[in-house]
């Protein structure tokens, strides 16, 4: 039954890749429920399989076993009901920012008039602060501006949920802070269910309602979940001065430093634990 607490239901998710030495299980028995309107971050060491989980939610890769149910329906392939913000902005370089966003809007609102579609595109590009760059091509935009277009494209779909794969991982530190603010701002206006992959602890704490820490791969799964109790709207400077912020941050860091490599005591049925390469497939857009 669909309730608000299991809007997104990830059930016993497992992903293996075939290798010459037999299947390598990157993610095994990953379980998670995400409530409607909740912002959840997946955090873990690189290669632990967090991006693999995200790409399965996006429908870009098939789970080996287990399932993902979004709003009462099992996910079957990729689709515009999930807005994806990729690590690289993945804009089509021969189109302007406007046309890149429009391409998605046309898919979700095929019956709207050209003018209505255009208004939606403009609205979201203005929302991410690109009012002056609407008709520029990606080559004329900075990395941060390109990722703003990527964010606008995801939100403009009015999707059931938002998937962010290390969305600011390729940006410099200052631009990253700036774009976190943009994301926080746009997200708070829509309260959209969101799952974000990151390895930046501060980013996770600032944006999320819950932070899901994943154990190290292979056979990565949910290690611990930390609630981030701060009221919204959040203000970075104000937040960082509180001791509660320090506590949450310390908890995350100590997990990543000490406990991530210890398997939680969930019994596994697989006896032959092969040494598998820690290579997880990333959502390259």
């Amino acid at each position, binding site marked *: 039954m669909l309730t608000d607490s299991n809007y997104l239901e990830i059930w016993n998710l497992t992903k293996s890749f075939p290798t010459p030495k037999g299947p390598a299980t990157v993610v095994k028995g990953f379980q998670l429920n995400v409530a409607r309107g909740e912002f959840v971050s997946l955090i873990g060491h690189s290669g632990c399989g967090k991006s693999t989980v995200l790409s399965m939610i996006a429908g870009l890769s098939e789970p080996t076993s287990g399932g993902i149910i979004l709003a009462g329906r099992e996910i079957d392939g990729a689709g515009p009901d*999930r807005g994806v913000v*990729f690590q690289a902005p*993945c804009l*089509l370089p021969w189109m302007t920012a406007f046309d890149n966003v429009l*391409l998605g809007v046309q*898919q979700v609102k095929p019956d709207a008039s050209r003018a209505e579609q255009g208004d939606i595109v403009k609205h979201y590009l203005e929302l991410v602060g690109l009012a002056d760059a609407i008709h520029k091509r990606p080559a004329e935009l900075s990395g941060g501006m390109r990722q703003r277009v990527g964010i606008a494209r995801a939100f403009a779909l009015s999707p059931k949920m938002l998937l962010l794969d290390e969305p600011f991982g390729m940006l410099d530190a200052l631009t990253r802070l700036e774009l976190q603010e943009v994301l926080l701002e746009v997200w708070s206006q829509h309260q959209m269910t969101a799952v974000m992959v990151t390895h930046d602890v501060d980013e996770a704490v600032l944006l999320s309602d819950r932070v899901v820490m994943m154990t190290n791969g292979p056979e990565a799964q949910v290690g611990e979940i930390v609630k981030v109790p701060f009221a919204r709207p959040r203000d970075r400077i104000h937040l960082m001065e509180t001791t509660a912020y320090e506590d949450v941050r310390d908890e995350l860091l100590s997990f990543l430093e000490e406990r991530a490599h210890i398997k939680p005591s969930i019994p596994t049925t697989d006896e032959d634990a092969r040494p598998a390469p820690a290579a997880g497939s990333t959502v*390259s*857009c």
Partner: protein
Amino acid sequence: MKRFPFDWLALPLVGLIAVGLLWVISCSTWAPNLPSPVKTWEMSRPYIVEPFAKRGELDQGVLRFTWYSLILVSKGYFIAILIGTPLGFLLGSSKTLTMMFDPIIQFLKPVSPLAWLPLGLVLFGKSEPAALFTIALCSMWPTVVNTAVGVRAVPQDYLNVARVLKLSKFKTLTKVLFPATLPYMFTGFRLSLGIAWLVIVACEMLIGTPGVGGFLWQEYNSLIYEHIILCILTIGCVGFILDRLMGIVERRFAAA
């Protein structure tokens, strides 16, 4: 290399003079039948000074002949592009098709135009369709191969965007695959045009239609060797200009 002012002009000129000297020396020593540069110029003058003159079916100004040749080439070339581009897309997007047809393509590619032309005459009976058949068949391969390579090289990033947005097959083709492949396609188009121009001369020689190649062959038969050189220089010039023009177009698309 040491650079000096105007080396871009001076060095090619030195090369030109060297080849010119070789020409002069050759025609006065071991190649008595080779017309000298001065003689070539004298005999070619009426064809160059009045480039559009039409004195008879096979006695016309050099640009007029070039024009005929260009028209024939462009017809064959467009057939090549019209068939080659979709073929390249098919081969690029299907591994099965590639494995099926790649050996045949590799095997047909080096076949000389002189070999295709008789087959064209057998198939079509008339000389013009046979010439077009030959031009198209010979010049198609760079377009096919480059388009296929381009389709295979489309970044997974772009394809994932198409998947996430659930673009239809047609939209994926027009909005993603086609624009992403354009730079490769134009490299193919440029190489194809070069071959088409190469083939035209062989075609005209055999078929005898008016054009630079036909003129060349006819003047050989009439023992006016100066005009052979005139034709060679014209063919070279036109080929060079065509390649440069396509190069400009190609760069425009590569930058976009």
